[in-house]
């Protein structure tokens, strides 16, 4: 099964777009790719699960770990899961993962970096 993580830009922010199945075997690759973005020069990251086909509990745990890292380093994290992506949305809802991980359904909910900064000052 094809799995791939691409460095992209979404809503003007650095993003990682995840293709294929995010599970026990592939989740460590997402963690490795996200870490420098959360702790480095950028304080923003979008994890795009739009093209992701499957999410298991190991993948969910990795998303939780990313949310924790983001909180600790003061970075802003969004996990993008369109409502139409049921194979990924359903486990997220079942686990109530939204309570700990900032999950959004569309790029509109993220807002632009500039607007966010205006709102904050």
């Amino acid at each position, binding site marked *: 099964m094809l799995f791939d993580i691409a460095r992209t830009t979404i809503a003007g922010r650095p993003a990682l777009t995840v293709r294929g199945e995010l599970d*026990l075997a592939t989740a460590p690759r997402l963690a490795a790719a996200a870490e420098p973005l959360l702790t480095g020069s950028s304080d923003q990251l979008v994890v795009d699960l739009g093209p992701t086909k499957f999410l298991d*509990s190991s993948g969910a*745990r990795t998303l939780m770990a990313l949310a924790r890292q983001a909180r600790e380093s003061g970075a802003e994290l969004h996990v993008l899961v369109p409502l139409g992506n049921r194979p990924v949305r359903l486990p997220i809802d079942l686990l109530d993962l939204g309570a700990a991980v900032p999950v959004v359904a569309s790029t509109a909910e993220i807002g632009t970096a500039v607007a966010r900064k205006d709102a904050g000052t």
Partner: protein
Amino acid sequence: MTAPRADEDALLRCAEEPIAIPGAIQPHGALLAVTEPDLAVVVASADAATLLGRSGGTLLDYLTDDDADRLRAALAGDLAEANPLRVQVDGADVDLVLHRADGLLISEWEPVAGAEEAGAAWHRRLPSVLQRLSASATLDELTEVLARDVRTLTGFDRVMVYRFDEAWNGEVIAEDRREDLEPFLGLRYPASDIPAQARALYTTNWMRIIPDAGYQRVPLDPPANPLTGRPLDLSGSMLRSVSPVHLEYLANMGVVSSMSVSLIDRGKLWGLISCHHYAGPHRPSYPDRVAAEFLGRTASLLLPTVVGAGETDGLVEVARRTAELTAAVGRTPRTPRALATALTEQDLTVLDLLPATGAAVRLDGQLRLLGTTPPAERVVLLVRALLDAGAGATDSASRLVPEGEGLAHTASGVLAVPVAGEDFLAWFRPETLREVTWGGNPYQSKTAQTDDGPRLSPRRSFAAWSETVRETSRPWREHEIAAAQALAGHLAAATLARAEEDNRLAGALQRTLLLEELPKVPGVALAARYRPSEDDVVGGDWYDLVPLPSGRVSIVLGDVAGHGLAAAAVTAQLRHALRANLLRADGPAAALDGLNEVIGALLPGEMATVVIAELDPETGGVVVASAGHLPVLHAGSGGAEYVMEGRGPALGVLDAPSYTETRLALAGDDRLLLFSDGLVERSVAGLAAGLDALRQAVDAGPADPQQLLDSVLGELNPPSTDDVTVLGVART
């Protein structure tokens, strides 16, 4: 050995004595038995004429007009409520106590003069005494309060709370006494001290008093009840004359006056409040005795709660320590030396797992001893002999195998579990006799050696009791044995696999997490299927059945995120922690709250899902709470539906999620299915389609849980890349 022979005769004489029909009373009052409704006196105690100033006639003849009116009113209502009628006889106060027996109305007359009265001050304090009793969280507290307040109330020199064991041996578990007296706390008595017919009497009559053990019996005249031709039944009488053997027993202990109040737990005699006076005769007034009986009755009502709480605490404590030791094993490099060190040299050792005085760990042939044990060279032989004899848990090893001979003082009780090969874990308890602590010498009272030969005395009591418990330890309880086996299972997995791959170890560890055989729960049909992943990648599924003290049973299915050894170790800890929480918590949601705290405090970064269905086998009521787990499937006559209420986030997602519960009823042929995501999530069309397929399969499947699970697994045919767990529940 002639002395025990004579003792047995004394006991036998006592056991055969007709204590309910002694044909006599004690002299601190008078008895008149009358027929109804004419109240004609048909039986009178020999002292009635002297005490009451007349004989014969009717009961009314003995009373002033006012008192006679009160008597008539009392007879028309509940006698227990009327007692005592305080009446005037020759200008003196007398407590008149009434009950019915043998077709007669029995009236007992006890002069108030000469009785001790605690007075109004004590009775005003009654609310605070009751408050103290009901606020007691433990049996120790309850019985201490009871002994202290009964003594304050009645003024006896010594008040003891006495508890019976299964064989009716007694133990003093609480005591309040005059300071200069030797303590009796911890003393044991053999069952024969209070013979069976006395125990039967104590179950119906809650209170006995002997104001002066040196009394002269007052015979009844005539001795027989004219209605029946048999001796009058005095089992409900407060003046009943007691067995001469009992009086002798009291005299041998130097007791001049005694009183006892029954403690009855759900209809069964549980113990006694036993009061002694040494300084001279002692008679608390009838109202004070009633107050003492009331305290005994109140404590009796509280017994099931505090005794139950003590037992549950024991369960919770052992479960908690099992979890901690299991975690320690999980953290330790899997060499025998490191494991042995982890079990014997850390803050928490195998000796702390359960109540024992000694423990032994033998790993890879190396033996380590903790606490008080037999000598090393005998431990191995003893344990091997017991395991070979199929007696892994015994309270009397020295009687069971020759290898135990002479070891009763350290190892009457042995709990041994094999680990692997010749390796084992073992715990030891001494004979119970050794555990008795003496606050002083209990033998100082005079021991009578009468012309008739030896009879009952405290010294002989203790000697007799010693015989019954020699070479016998406190028994091992079921949950203690289970904890020992669980720890040995984890160790076996760790040592077995040390040369193998992590996955194999995790697999062995996880197999100990799954039940080899489902416990039998009356009224419930249970089935479980666990299919490990074929990739040899071990998952974090676990399931459990936890019978609760309430009679309900918790059915648990959980899944720890991740695979391999780490996940299996986390799973082990969560399973034990959840067991402890289920036993302690108010319901499944509260247990999940507790478990989430465990993850937050001890396993940060881990995530797990759990669903709990708590079933009441009697009513079919089910309480469901889920932490992020796939919903439970409820199949009934109306079709199969997922239970979507009672859900909260997965464990580890939030710090304090506050889980909720939902309730449903399992009626008739209804089935409940709990399952792990492996059953549905890799469905070709996705998780939602998998859930739909499962619902259809269950709807069309057979009713029997075993057949249903086989049918569902066949129908869904989940891929073998993940482990799959399914539980089926129905009522029988």
